[in-house]
């Protein structure tokens, strides 16, 4: 383990601390093993006098470099003729004490200072953060050498100093966690209800930082053991004590005579540190939930054909109009779910819909009704763990669910394109806007010059006033409305036949919403695209859509041409949905401002 680089824990989920820490560890077999090993180590250290068969410091001439298996001395003797097993047992004492001391000191310094800096901010934060940056920027072993030069080889002083050097790791962790918690609503509520800052810190903040601090402390303890052993190995420790580090140092001196002597202390250090790391990792995974594991790549195709579409008799309404024009998209009895071991949570069930060229189908429903999941399933870009469990998705007559991943991907940006909901998080922050427009076009075979020229045209087409400036900007330098225009430009750059727009105006300011809707309407009519418009906003539906499918709890409950749905809703849920919008209801007179338009009437 390198000196100053404990794995920086990613901020764990905040409220995830209601189960006891011990229970979290016990549930993970690896972490439990680690915990048991640590407990055994502590017992060995405490009862070293009883366990060790010989005096660890007493040399015996016959035992000099004795090989393992020597009678009464199972691990043999070292270069000075001392029993290796006994030294190993006694060595655990100083090693564990050093780790405990260093971690203790860094907790005592790092946690309170991190709490104060994170909670109050201001001057203390500025000064403490500077000091912490300074300490983290200096190789700590070099500092320890200076400390040893100044105070002599005392383990106590060296490890106290090392604890100080480790403290910034905890300081930074606690500070960032505290800042995160401080902005939580329940802390604000606690403050409003009159709890003192000290009580808030003690009761709420400490509770949240507890698990991360323990995780980090386990890592720091491992680092402390390795650094302490390293110093002992260099001969900078106390020569009167048996330690694992000095044992490796002694073995190093007789490397050619007794090469096995260095194995045991090394293994002892390795096992102890590994146990600490495992306990830390187990706790980290427990706190973060299953997200700590990387996903296994699934063979989506195989899973998708489990229930062929033809075998599921569908009673659900199918969104298909009788109008002219060929079908661009046809979804049949689509079922999407997230398997967790034995159970599967189904988020889209038996959904069928169809869109013809030049037609706009609105997919409405409240949040969690499965609209967006349906859209992602059509794109073939379901979030991790999601699968198409049954049904088929026909794009221009081809069932894309049965296509190989590679072929399916080829449709994206060409036949099918996508406009996301939240513009700012959908542009890559590390690349200029222009590059993000040019790259997909180059993937489609355009040369860079041609793609760049086209990007300027597209930016102008979506109504961006200064295309050159936007082309050269990074995403964080433009507004949300501009970003959405950029994403629309990107979506139409491949001349798609089917455009999937997932709540394209929800994240925008009201004034910008109207402009973006107008833009979408114009582009759709000029290009005769088939559009699947996912939204919860019935105003948007009325404005843009030809027909509407209403979703509830993963199913489509009603499909109708837009005029019919608004005029004569058949399903209860649709009526409720219509009734809950503000369009036709007047605000109460007393609260109505003279010229305030009802929020959604403009759309």
């Amino acid at each position, binding site marked *: *383990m390198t000196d100053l680089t404990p794995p920086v824990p990613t901020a764990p989920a905040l409220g995830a601390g209601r189960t006891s820490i011990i229970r979290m560890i016990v549930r993970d077999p690896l972490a439990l093993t680690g915990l048991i090993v640590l407990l055994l180590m502590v017992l060995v250290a405490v009862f070293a006098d009883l366990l060790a068969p010989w005096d660890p410091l007493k040399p015996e001439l016959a035992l000099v470099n004795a090989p393992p298996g020597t009678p009464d001395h199972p691990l043999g003797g070292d270069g000075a003729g001392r029993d290796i097993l006994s030294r190993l047992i006694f060595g655990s004492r100083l090693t564990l004490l050093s780790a405990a001391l260093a971690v203790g000191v860094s907790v005592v310094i790092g946690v309170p200072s991190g709490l104060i800096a994170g909670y109050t901010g201001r001057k203390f934060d500025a000064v403490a953060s500077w000091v912490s940056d300074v300490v983290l920027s200096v*190789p700590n072993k*070099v500092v320890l050498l200076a400390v040893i030069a100044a105070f002599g080889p005392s383990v106590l002083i060296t490890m106290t100093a090392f604890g100080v050097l480790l403290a910034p790791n905890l300081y930074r962790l606690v500070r960032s966690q505290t800042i995160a918690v401080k902005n939580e609503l329940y802390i604000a509520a606690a403050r409003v209800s009159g709890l003192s800052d000290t009580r808030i810190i003690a009761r709420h903040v400490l509770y949240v930082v507890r698990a991360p601090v323990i995780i980090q402390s386990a890592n720091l303890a491992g680092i402390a053991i*390795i650094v302490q*052993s*390293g110093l002992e190995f260099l001969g900078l420790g106390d020569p009167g004590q048996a330690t694992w580090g000095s044992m490796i140092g002694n073995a190093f001196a007789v490397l050619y005579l007794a090469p096995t002597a260095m194995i045991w202390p090394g293994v002892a250090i390795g096992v102890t540190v590994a146990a600490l790391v495992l306990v830390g990792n187990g706790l980290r995974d427990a706190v973060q939930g299953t997200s700590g594991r*990387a996903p296994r790549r699934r063979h989506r195709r195989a899973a998708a054909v489990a229930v062929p579409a033809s075998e599921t008799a569908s009673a659900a309404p199918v969104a298909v109009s009788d109008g002219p024009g060929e079908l661009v998209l046809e979804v049949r009895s689509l079922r999407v779910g997230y398997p967790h071991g034995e159970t599967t949570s189904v988020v889209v069930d038996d959904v069928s819909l169809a869109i013809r060229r030049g037609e706009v189908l609105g997919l409405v429903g409240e949040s969690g009704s499965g609209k967006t999941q349906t859209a992602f399933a059509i794109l073939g870009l379901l979030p991790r763990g999601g699968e198409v469990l049954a049904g088929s998705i026909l794009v221009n007559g081809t069932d894309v669910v049965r296509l190989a991943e590679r072929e399916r991907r080829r449709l994206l*940006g060409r036949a099918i394109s996508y406009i996301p909901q939240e513009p700012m998080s959908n542009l890559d922050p590390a690349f200029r806007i222009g590059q993000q427009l040019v790259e997909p076009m180059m993937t489609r075979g355009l040369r860079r010059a041609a793609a760049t020229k086209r990007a300027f045209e597209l930016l102008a087409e979506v109504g961006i006033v200064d295309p050159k400036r936007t082309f050269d900007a990074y995403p*964080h330098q433009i507004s949300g409305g501009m970003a959405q225009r950029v994403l629309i430009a990107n979506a139409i750059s491949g001349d798609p036949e089917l455009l999937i727009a997932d709540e394209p105006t929800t994240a925008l300011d009201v004034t910008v919403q109207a402009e973006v809707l107008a833009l979408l309407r114009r582009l759709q009519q000029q290009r005769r695209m088939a559009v699947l418009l996912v939204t919860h906003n019935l105003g948007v539906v009325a404005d843009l859509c030809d027909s509407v499918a209403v979703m509830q709890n993963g199913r489509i409950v009603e499909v109708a041409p837009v005029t019919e749905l608004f005029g004569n809703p058949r399903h209860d849920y649709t009526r409720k949905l219509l009734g809950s919008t503000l369009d036709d209801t007047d605000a109460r007179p007393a609260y109505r401002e003279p010229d305030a338009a009802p929020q959604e009437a403009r759309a």
Partner: protein
Amino acid sequence: MIAFALRRLLFGLSLILFATTATFFLVYRDASLVTRNILGEGATQADLDARAAAMGLDRPILVQFLDWLGGAVTGDFGQSYFSTESVASILVSRVPVTLSIVAVGVLVSALVSAVLGILAAVRGGVIDRIVQVLSVIGMALPNFWVALMLVVVFAVTWRLLPATGYVSPAQSVSGWLASITLPVIALAVASIAAATQQVRGAMIDVLDTDYIRTLRASGVRERSILFRHALKNAASPALTVLSLQFIGLFGGAIVIEKVFALPGLGTTAVNATLQGDVPVLLGVVAVTVVIVVAVNLLIDLANGWVNPKVTLR
């Protein structure tokens, strides 16, 4: 960007000043202790005083410090207590050795951890679990012990590589490579283990973002998504780790140099500590901090490039 670079430079300079000042006052010793140490038990008080006067140790501590600082700025770090060599000339001969193993170690660590971390994040499953296990083992083994094992296996048993010594690349490039191979491996193992975890975590986070989905929806090839977009976005946290790794490897080098008997800064610092050779130790601290600051500055600038938002802070 320029303001950002200047801010980082200013922090670096304040760091150098702070670290050297703190070290000076930490290791400062009373003149009689120093001269007794040099001249031995038999020396008379008059001898000691004369020696102290000759070395300038009889001046007030603040004067001594300012004198040292003034010299250090111009590259004059004074004289070793125990040899006739100037500290500056000792440092000049030692820095390339340590820098060789640390710089190559960081490079190796960055490359290997990038490959392993991406593999674990993208492939998942068994590969991920293997990488995780290797990384726990890598973190748990002390680097000097790994070094010893490497010596036993590759140098003593198989005689493939030299166990000790350093060859300057000016003499022979292949000899240089052979002389630093084992130290670099020993140094990099733990660093790879830690950095792999970071790369893996950062990649998993980035691959889950909205903009990666939108890039996929735009038809951008998976190769470009992984190695251009995801990697560049994951690079920012990884670079921060890299700068910490570099500092950590400098510390690690101190122990590793002893195993391989490399005449680097670490060996020098350890010997100076054991002897109480204050000027040499101060020189090592100063030059180490300067190198660390310079490298961190470079990494900060690289960070400003991969993550345009950083420069705004």
